[in-house]
């Protein structure tokens, strides 16, 4: 007769979290639904991303010149060498890069060569010539004295705090500057908002402008060779876009007692190539559908144990229930993360040729590279999103114990907002994308866009909070309830 104390298992039995992880991993891999869910998730992700890429085209590389030259100009001719000086008293902050300052320009038509020096609310004094070559000054903002001096084809910019001591900011040669150029004050204010027109599921966006007003005094034009004082005229160079509500923006200027009040909007310079499509996010868009299978996987990982009563076996062999939930979460999270990462990379590789064929190519849309931190974050973020979503689903599955109810609830919270969002007013859509678990998708953003609801890590934080609340509640219920 053998006695139980001869127990052959006794010497080798261990009790560690690693054992629980092994147990849960064995459970997960040994049922077919796991493989099905993962294959379905990956397949849908790739398919939908490819379809999305196929249906989206651009002419970003064929569009007109990317130079912009839009501002309000108060000017008079200056023949030969000379200088223009002004004291910028105040500047309205409509954005960080609104500009108020001085300009010498070949003429008043858009695109004519120029040299300018201006103050900005947040970026100090900037000297700029011919849509490029920014030279930074040292002054931080209005009030400030500015001066441009022409000597032949060379123009030098100065800044001064008091109008007495001047500091040279820089000197630029403009070969084509004619003998008589237009000099004077200018004000402009780049777009910081979008005008969005939503009809049905169709969204059109364009830049919206808010004009900035600046005041100047001590304005003087000093030709080297004496000339009769010329009169000031003013105009909008180019035509700024409308305000967010669609009303047109018109620049203006008035002079009273030597104080010039100038209002204008627009921008001067060369915009970087490209539209504002987030092609990395577009490549990963299939996750919106693929995630449904991941939700099912996360829910069923727990509810399948309740369906047949396996949960009682689980808690009989592992009475510490919180650790079981933790082990499930770790195993599920790692598996989904791994599959999500591979699939996200595959989606990027798969959709890129389709995007290129549809016009999304360099220079406007250069190939994304994993060496680019934003792209890497989008790829890893997609996997993190799926993993965290699976944990949220696991938590809900544990609380509700029934697959049907839990899947319905999670889908209602995650998938439904992603579908109905585009039919809502933008603000409502953004609100949904900020507060529902869908916020985690912000990890896929690689560009600043009007429809970015929330920052990448903040969005992921929102999803983590959902998962944490669900798992916390699940943990509490597991310990409290009978199995």
């Amino acid at each position: 007769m053998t006695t139980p104390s001869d127990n052959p298992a006794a010497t080798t039995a261990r009790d560690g979290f690693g054992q629980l992880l092994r147990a849960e991993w064995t459970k997960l891999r040994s049922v077919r639904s796991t493989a099905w869910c993962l294959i379905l998730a990956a397949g849908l992700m790739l398919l939908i991303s490819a379809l999305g890429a196929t249906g989206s085209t651009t002419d970003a590389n064929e569009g007109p010149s990317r130079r912009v030259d839009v501002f309000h100009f108060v000017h008079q001719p200056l023949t030969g060498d000379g200088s223009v000086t002004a004291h910028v008293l105040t500047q309205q902050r409509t954005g960080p890069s609104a500009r108020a300052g001085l300009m010498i320009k070949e003429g008043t038509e858009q695109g004519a060569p120029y040299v300018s020096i201006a103050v900005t609310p947040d970026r100090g004094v900037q000297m700029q010539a011919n849509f490029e070559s920014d030279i930074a000054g040292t002054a931080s903002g209005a009030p400030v004295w500015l001066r441009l001096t022409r000597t032949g084809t060379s123009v030098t910019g100065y800044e001064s705090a008091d109008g007495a001591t001047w500091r040279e900011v820089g000197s630029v040669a403009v070969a084509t500057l004619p003998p008589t150029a237009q000099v004077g004050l200018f004000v402009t204010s780049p777009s910081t908002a979008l005008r969005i027109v939503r009809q049905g599921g169709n969204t059109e966006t364009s830049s919206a402008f808010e004009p900035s007003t600046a005041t100047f005094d001590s304005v003087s034009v000093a030709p080297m060779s004496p000339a009769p004082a010329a009169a000031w005229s003013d105009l909008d160079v180019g035509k700024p876009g409308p305000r967010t509500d669609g009303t047109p923006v018109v620049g203006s200027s008035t002079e009273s007692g030597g104080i010039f009040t100038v209002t204008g909007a627009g921008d001067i310079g060369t915009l970087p190539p490209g539209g504002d499509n987030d092609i990395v996010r577009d490549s990963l868009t299939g996750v919106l559908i693929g995630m449904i299978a991941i939700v099912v996987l996360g829910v069923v990982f727990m509810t399948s144990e309740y369906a047949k009563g396996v949960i009682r076996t689980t808690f009989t062999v592992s009475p510490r229930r919180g650790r079981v939930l933790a082990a499930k979460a770790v195993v599920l999270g790692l598996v989904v993360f791994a599959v999500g990462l591979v699939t996200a990379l595959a989606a990027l590789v798969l959709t890129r040729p389709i995007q290129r064929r549809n016009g999304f190519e360099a220079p406007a849309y250069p190939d994304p590279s994993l060496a680019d931190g934003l792209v890497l974050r989008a790829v890893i973020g997609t996997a993190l999103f799926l993993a965290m979503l699976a944990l949220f689903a696991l938590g809900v599955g544990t609380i509700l114990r029934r697959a049907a109810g839990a899947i319905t609830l999670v889908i209602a919270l995650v998938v439904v907002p992603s579908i109905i969002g585009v039919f809502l007013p933008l603000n409502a859509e953004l609100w949904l994308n900020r507060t529902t678990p869908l916020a985690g998708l912000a990890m896929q953003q690689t560009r600043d866009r009007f429809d970015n609801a929330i920052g990448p890590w903040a969005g992921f934080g929102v999803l983590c909070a959902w998962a944490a609340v669900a798992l916390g509640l699940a943990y509490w219920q597991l310990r409290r309830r009978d199995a």
Partner: protein
Amino acid sequence: MGMTATIEARGLRKHYGRTVAVDGLSFTVAPGQVTGFVGPNGAGKSTTMRMILGLDAPDEGTALVGGRQYRSLRTPLREVGALLDAAAIHPGRRARNHLLWMAHSNGLPAGRVDEVLEQVGLGSVARRRAGGFSLGMRQRLGIAGALLGDPPVLMFDEPVNGLDPEGIMWIRGLLRSLAAQGRAVFVSSHLMSELEDTADHLIVIGRGRLITDASVDKLIAAASGDRVDVRTSRRAEAMTVLANAGATVAAGDHEILTVNGLTGERIAALLTERGLPFSELRQHRASLEEAYMELTRDAVEFNVTSVRQAS
């Protein structure tokens, strides 16, 4: 292990809504024998077992396994093997994997899985999905899980349910051999007959309360009482004689009389005195089923303490 390899219930009470499933239940399961846990359906057997395993929290009382609360066990498979519900298997999982995750969770080697599969006779279907298993095969798989950690305490809830006669024979043999190895074997059934020839000790409950807690021998003796069976060809005359002597006499099958209230010697003397022939005279031995019927029929009348004192 050793002396502490037992199950102890102390004042267990559990209610679900308005149903009191278990009501102040106390008992001890001793090692080295099969303890039957008997009561009609709904008596509270499964609930008691769930409380012992820490699955359901008792309203009152405690249950200890080997002197400890189940939930404090770190590798419970080594301490207690339990089969609660043979249907509690993921139908899509292969039999071997079902045992493998259990083994992993308690750090048991995978080799144990193959051993217990052979032991319960499922070696050849180890890699089949449990969804296709018959009830008998599921019972065997559940028992394999209970045996995984080679524990000193085993608990089976209605393991005979739905088994064919061959399976019943197998389980009986297994229970006996496990007890013979010195383990405490606690097995429930709603049919006393299922435990005939298997259980050494019985804990009988009804409506969540203890009805009796006694060895099988004592129970049968109590149910048998001081009755004597007599076989005689002249039953009518014999009945009159014995009744006149103060006995209660009942006519049984054929030529049998069951006599209550007189010893065997006295009956023999009376019948011989009157010249009535009798071919057989023996102490009546009740079946376990009879004992059970008697217990549950007048559960209130039955004096639990008298049985206990007798034992």
